[in-house]
């Protein structure tokens, strides 16, 4: 199996999103493993600013040469910012998966329990190993 990079400050969903709390906002992107599995990313479809999302909702789409994958909201809240840079330069997702955030969510009251349900870097690394064939 390939060796993947992890952001130690992020939490991870089984569906390969990472979420990092910055200034009270949940910043969301996709993991190094996710971008590697997708290969060359050619298109990113972002949610609308102001959209209300629930953890587990498919809110964005990331497409590579061969596949289209949904990006799920790891936490509930309101989308307050999207990374327009990815629309013009989707390859940033491959180059810098933990820098290339997709959207920021102003979380609601369920944040703590939603974060607790996500995985830390070690647990996510183990999850990747277990799900690799």
């Amino acid at each position, binding site marked *: 199996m390939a060796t993947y990079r992890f952001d130690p400050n992020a939490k991870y969903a089984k569906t390969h999103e990472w979420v990092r709390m910055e200034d009270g906002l949940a910043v969301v992107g996709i993991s190094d493993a996710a971008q590697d599995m997708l*290969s*060359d990313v050619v298109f990113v*479809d972002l949610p609308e600013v102001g959209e209300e999302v629930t953890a587990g909702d498919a809110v964005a789409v990331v497409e590579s*040469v061969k596949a289209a994958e949904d990006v799920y909201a790891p936490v509930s809240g309101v989308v307050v910012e999207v990374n327009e840079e990815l629309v013009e330069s989707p390859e940033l997702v491959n180059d810098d998966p933990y820098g290339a955030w997709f959207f920021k969510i102003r979380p609601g009251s369920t944040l703590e329990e939603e974060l607790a349900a996500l995985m830390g870097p070690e647990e996510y690394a183990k999850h990747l190993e277990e799900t690799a064939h």
Partner: protein
Amino acid sequence: MAELRRTRLHRAHVELGGRMVPFAGWELPVQYPSGPLAEHHAVRNAAGIFDIDHMGQIRVTGPDALPFLQRIQVFDASTLEVWDAHYSLMTYDDGTIVDDIFIYRLDDGWMIAVNAANREKDLAWMQAHTQGLDVQVQDISEPTYMLAVQGPRAEAVLQKLTQANLAPVPARTALRAQVAGVEMVLGRTGYTGEDGFELFFDADQAETVWWRILEAGQEEGLLPCGLAARDSLRFEACLPLYGHEISAETTPHEARLGWVVSLDKEDFIGREALWKTRLEGPPRLLVGLEMIDRAVPREGYPIAVEGRVVGHVTTGMKSPTLGTFLALGYVPRGHHRLGTQVEIQVRGKPRRAQVVRRPFYKPRYRPGRVSR
């Protein structure tokens, strides 16, 4: 599911970091670490090498080889001289497509290159139509290895490994030569929209030939290329892929392959039906579509006109060479004209697209042989 077959280069692909996936019953690299985009650009700008040993080769020999070929495929093979090669189709009685094939007229008979997924079907189809003819039809896929070296630098790469002078070899012709010390048939053919060669040789020499070409290609910018790049390259050049643009449900004319069909040659299977579609015009047509709205069209997405579904996308992607979002798909005749606007339903949402000229990328082949 049946065990996936491995080509003799399986170990080489793994060693190169190829990502192995199932394809038509075979385990093949979809990409190498450089990625499908880099591989695509290498073929457009320099060169790429593809392991296409999953493709089948069928040898046709005997005094009635030509009448047999005239019966089972649509192109007038009598126009081919020794060393000529030509794209063609085999059709059923109703004019739908058995397979798309490449015919090589060699010095010792004919060779037909067929799609991996159709190999057994094609062989059975051919063998079932030899009645009354003195012809031998033999599957030589096992002992024959097939590689493709494609791109503007393909000739330069191979020239380093052979005494034969490759420069004057016209497109769609073949020759016998020794490459990397291995006797082979080299066709100036391919399926990428670029100049290049396809190599047919003793399967036991696969590793030798593969590594020698990779080595010779290093300073020319040659990359090993996987299935993803093969698909995006053939797509931009609008070369159909069986199971996608063409199938047992489509006819040559609706797939815009009427140019392959020699309706005026002697009788062949499907001729009557093809005369009819030719005269009446097919009810639907394959078109090239470019997205007006930003979205990636993909195979299977519905094509709609004023909210009503009229067809489907057969292949779609962001074109690596052109940077635009493009699709091939079927629409009813009348909606096929350049500039016609349709909607492609991208994950349920209507996105505007318009009919554009095919091919998306104009192939850069060498000149063909001048007919005498």
